[in-house]
């Protein structure tokens, strides 16, 4: 099932808000998780697990460390 970039972005926004409290509106494609959103590595693990449940795409640990921005995650899920 194809999921649009916007749908993934909105889903990620909800997940990130739930886990970190960052407003979903601040979760935009160009944002870096570490530099812009100040999300630590433990929270990234939580976000990755929640994203797997939401989008049905497994994000292995060795891939997760390469996903630096919101756009990286969107691309990973889409592909």
């Amino acid at each position: 099932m194809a999921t649009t970039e916007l749908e993934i972005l909105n889903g990620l926004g909800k997940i990130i808000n739930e886990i970190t409290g960052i407003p979903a509106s601040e979760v935009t494609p160009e944002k870096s998780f570490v530099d812009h959103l100040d999300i630590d590595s433990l929270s990234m693990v939580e976000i990755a697990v929640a994203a797997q449940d939401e989008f049905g795409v497994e994000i292995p640990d060795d891939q997760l460390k390469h996903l630096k921005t919101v756009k990286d995650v969107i691309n990973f899920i889409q592909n």
Partner: protein
Amino acid sequence: MSTDRVRVVVTGLGATTPLGGDVASTWSGLVAGRSGVRPLNQEWIDVLPVGFAAPAAVDPTEVLPRPEARRLDRAEQFALVAAREAWRDAGSPEVDADRLGVVVGSGIGGITTVLSAYDTFKEKGWQRLSPFTIPMLMPNGAAGWVGLEVGAKAGVHSTVSACATGAESIGYALEMIRSGRADIVVAGGTEAAIHPLNLASFAAMRALSTRNDEPERASRPFDKNRDGFVLGEGSGIIVLESLEHARARGARIYAEALGVGYSADAHHIAQPEPEGRGIVLAMERALANAEIAPSEVLHINAHATSTPAGDVMEAVAIKSAIGDHPVVTATKSMTGHLLGGAGGVESVATILSLVNRLVPPTTNLDDPDDGVEIDVVRGEARALPEGEIAAINNSFGFGGHNVAVVFKTFHS
């Protein structure tokens, strides 16, 4: 009194208890003799001999932001709520982080996290565990979070001594300031252990009341018909500060933290030593540490949990170590037993009794047991006299730990 010793005062109070989500509501509940004990309605109570407890009046997840709550065990949540109140109450002071400490402990730690995480692990696999599982279950987790909250760098510690934990934390904090390691320390205890396994395990010890037909009457310290304690939950945290530091910043001072006494029974892992010698020793050492005479102690907030074994022994020990003149109360009759949180909450109560010159009643004390030859407040709250007076908070724990903390009225 030696003149060179650092004097320590209390400048902030925080609590979240079965009687209320803050200090004010907890105190008014205590003074009114209100019970925080309620029947439990979870599906699992059918398999237990005990169907009631004293849950926190305000669920911490209603107070804390959701992203914060999900990373904290319930015991840590209580501690953070109480510590924030205490810190605000102290004026949220700007202090030198290197001179700021934290001592917060819990009797059992993140027990509900352990149990639910194990279920998650078995049912869904390790990948589904929260990456915060370890910081949620470690017994020093609450101290760690409170330390982060206030930015403490002098030292963040957790004393663990079962039901004496909260009082021992306050004693340790007092010593941190006296020894020159810190100017200001956030200290107390927390517990969140209302879970079927804990209720079952305490029931297996025959330690819990099974008065299922009258839960509000179940916690009855010193009463002849007591049959065990009632499990409570919550946290009590205070801010201790050197008098010099408190004066320099113009802080409001509740009371002086005058001394602490410790002892150990060396008798049995869970049963109190039958002569109460350890308890006497803790109170005597507390008086010596506070450099006061027994006659100056006009109030005692007793440990008195409503178990058959402990209460009379404490009454006898109080009479022996202090005398029969102090006005004694057992606030667990209303809050239930908060285990590691008890010493924190009861220190808050002891301090407010000095400030307000009012001792909350011991509820459900219809018929004092043989050997209770001390002045326990029944019925209505009782006034304390004017003038400089001291009070003791007793806390004892499985393992044979005995702690007595002395507070005194403060006049600037």
